[in-house]
């Protein structure tokens, strides 16, 4: 194996990882927002405060979310993956934009309240 090729490989991978780490600083910045937005099929289903405990079924999606002790999580989903249930709950100090996504049921819980129906429609269009 040529040493020069391996050096090129690691320079390339280091460049990719540095770019992604810089991007992650922007995305994973902690925020003190108290709200989560629930999206269902690309439209805003509702906005909930992390301070109020609730358990709610999201429309006819088969997904049930729970906000308890300042943490939002998915407690029930009829999809086979279960990735949303296994995801880390969203809490007050989670990064702005932190999310739990159930792709098969098209449900997402997103930290923050900046997602507006207009933005959501733009995504859908």
């Amino acid at each position, binding site marked *: *194996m*040529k040493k020069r*090729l*391996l050096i*090129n*490989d*690691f320079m*390339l*991978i280091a460049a*990719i*990882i540095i770019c*992604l*780490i810089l*991007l*992650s600083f922007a*995305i*994973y910045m902690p925020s003190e927002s108290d709200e989560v937005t629930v*999206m269902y099929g*690309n439209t805003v289903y509702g906005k909930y405060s992390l301070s109020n405990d609730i358990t709610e079924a999201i429309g006819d999606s088969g997904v049930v979310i729970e906000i308890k002790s300042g943490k939002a999580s998915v407690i029930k989903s009829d*999809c*086979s*993956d279960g*990735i949303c249930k*296994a*995801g*880390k709950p969203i809490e007050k100090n989670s*990064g702005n*934009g*932190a*999310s739990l*996504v159930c*792709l*098969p049921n*098209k449900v*997402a*819980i*997103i930290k923050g309240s900046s*997602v507006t129906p207009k*933005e*959501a429609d733009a*995504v*859908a269009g």
Partner: protein
Amino acid sequence: MQVNKLSKISVSALFTVFAAICGILEGMLPLQLIIPVPGVKLGIANIFIVFAFKCLGAPFAIAVSLARTLLVFLFTGNAMAFALSISGALFSFVSLYFMMKLQNKVFSYIGVSSVCAVFHGAGQIALAYIIIGNAVLYYLPALLIVCALTGVFTGALMNVSEKKVLSNFKV
């Protein structure tokens, strides 16, 4: 000429089966317990797609890639994973096509495999973005960093196994 084409079809069928078996076995590994990022896989199946490209050419490699995705879907029945996998496979194939022109001149398989893995992850996120919107962008940096690192692992495997595999499947 005809014999050569038949040999290529037979070898691509073998690569497809190897890749599908690796894909199914990888799906059983609880990798997300160690790396808590949704959809994370080692990507060992991609070794066979890169080798298919190397010894059979681009058309056979894309055929192997799509056929193995379809085979894994038939065994697992997970439609969403199938759609994400197709999207990732197409993105990753575009990058593979260009990276293979640089393979052994500028980069070894480690560089090729890492870039392809990153494009595979980006392709999956792109489809998820179309389905559900910007909620999935939160996973983008973490998923792509893990993809780059798993690409190093599969690339290293390709570097050490290239001679043996390609000498056995010379067409």
